[in-house]
């Protein structure tokens, strides 16, 4: 499974980088006369409501999905690692404050909070990233806090203190590295979550603005042609499903390799 996941993700990354060169068509070029046409030899996935090549748009959309996922996961995990390690290592009052904030954010259904945030900030890709990061970091914080609590008991952490190392040094050298493998697993799975969330927000018109191709906006456009031209919806939907599956396979596989105990 980890191999399948790896292949899918690697392929998606390749597509995201090489995207424009893989298709003969410009994702924004319109061929209005052939709008809503189904798959054919010249357009293997058909044409959309403006007569644009769906394959070209899916290839281009991969870039948006991966980019959003990557940025969200990076911001969330770095923020989460910082607050989680501080809370777990120092404990006490600092921990109380951070843990309460995490609890509160976790109590909201994440996607609703993101929708509310984007609605307030205004629809744009940047605000989607921001909103998903605001809800995303808490998972990492909670994970790393737990690991930091455990790490504090490790004798080598005590030994480092006995050798005169200060707290920032101990956190960076001894606490974060022990948490890092689980963070990588969480981040891989987090990519899947962020990709779905971005698609959902774009589907609702809160994310990527036309004409930039995104899988979410493609789903949105296909909605009104669900019965007369289902290929508008099916192909981006399948693309999302495959990529999300890929990240989930990869994440689960990594988790099993890194720490078999975590998988239950």
């Amino acid at each position, binding site marked *: 499974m980890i191999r399948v996941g790896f292949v899918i993700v690697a392929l998606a990354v390749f597509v995201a980088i090489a995207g424009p060169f893989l298709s003969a068509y410009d994702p924004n070029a319109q061929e209005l006369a052939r709008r809503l046409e189904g798959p054919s030899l010249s357009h293997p996935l058909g044409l959309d409501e403006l007569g644009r090549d769906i394959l070209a748009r899916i290839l281009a959309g991969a870039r948006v999905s991966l980019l959003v996922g990557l940025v969200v996961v990076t911001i969330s995990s770095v923020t989460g690692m910082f607050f989680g390690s501080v809370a777990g290592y120092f404990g006490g009052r600092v921990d109380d404050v951070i843990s309460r904030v995490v609890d509160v954010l976790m109590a909201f259904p994440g996607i609703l909070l993101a929708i509310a945030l984007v609605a307030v900030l205004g629809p744009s890709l940047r605000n989607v990233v921001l909103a998903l990061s605001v809800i995303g970091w808490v998972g990492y914080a909670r994970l790393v806090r737990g690991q930091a609590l455990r790490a504090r008991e*490790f004798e080598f952490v005590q030994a480092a203190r006995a050798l*005169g*190392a200060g707290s920032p040094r101990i956190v960076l*050298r001894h606490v974060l590295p022990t948490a890092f493998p689980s963070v990588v697993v969480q981040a891989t799975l987090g990519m899947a979550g962020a990709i779905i969330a971005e698609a959902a927000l774009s589907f609702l018109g809160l994310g990527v603005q036309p004409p930039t191709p995104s899988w979410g906006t493609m789903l949105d456009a296909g909605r009104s042609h669900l019965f007369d031209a289902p290929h508008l919806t099916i192909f981006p939907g399948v693309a999302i499903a495959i990529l999300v599956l890929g990240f989930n396979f990869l994440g689960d596989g990594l988790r099993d390799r890194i720490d078999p105990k975590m998988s239950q």
Partner: protein
Amino acid sequence: MPERAPLLTVEHLTTGFQVRDGFVPAVIDVSFHVSAGDTLCIVGESGSGKSVTALSIMRLVEPPGRIAEGRIIFNGHDLLTVSEREMQAIRGAQIALIFQEPMTALNPVFTIGNQIEETLRVHGRATRRTAPQQAIDLLAAVSIPEPQKRVRDYPHQLSGGMRQRALIAMSLACEPSLVIADEPTTALDVTIQAQILELLRDLQQRMGLALLLITHDLGVVAEMADRVAVMYAGRIVEEAPVRALFDDPKHPYTRGLMGSIPGGAPGTRLRAIQGTVPPLGALPPGCAFAPRCPERFDPCPKAPPGTTDFGGGRGVKCYLHGPAVEPQVAPPAPVERV
């Protein structure tokens, strides 16, 4: 032997843990001193407060633990009054603590060399350029064969004895003047124990270290100590130069310990005395040893005995040797409201 000014003097140290019902002492009114070139052994059963004493000196007791009383004078400064930053500069550089478990005291994800270099860098004793060679030299100094290869090993690649040598190299990297070794050989098998002890003795002589060696093993005491402090249930119940202690143990607990080492072979555990150390917070009101003491008599359960001084560095807390009662160290009575 002329008595040098002590490098470390611990006075009336009381350290304990805050629990729901109040403060429970694990180390009670402990006083001792160690000079350069001198080895003081603290010996006692598991749970008697030895490690808490060591952590108190390093100021590494973590909440809910806290140092409630006392002074820890190192090199003329009271460590309990210096800032945390000053304390960090002292830890590892002037006072080193060697842990019992060399496997867990080393971080499994870094090489031996990396961990020694890190210690040097923490205290600014090496640059990126000089550190690798210094690490090799340090491993050579603790007699690890092929040190230029071993620096690249991870802890799990070394045997227990080699790991403890590496840990000692790490602890001594910044040339501390006081070394506290908390049961440094307990996790090792007997022949390796003897080698590590010999290494410690050798390093102590070469570097003129003050060595505070914590053990539950009277064999180790006989091998290493200049002076001995016998600890029981948080208190030092007897202190004596090593010969005097073995020739004429005065405290019934010490005698019990002696009875438990046939020939003083290293590695022998203290288990010949009936019963166990009373748990924290359940100390009897009088002499803490009274429930197990074969020589218990009238005054014993009433109040803890104080120190009877025999001169020549000998002191005993036991009513068999004098009527001294421990000065009241309990917290002051609550102020009465009218």
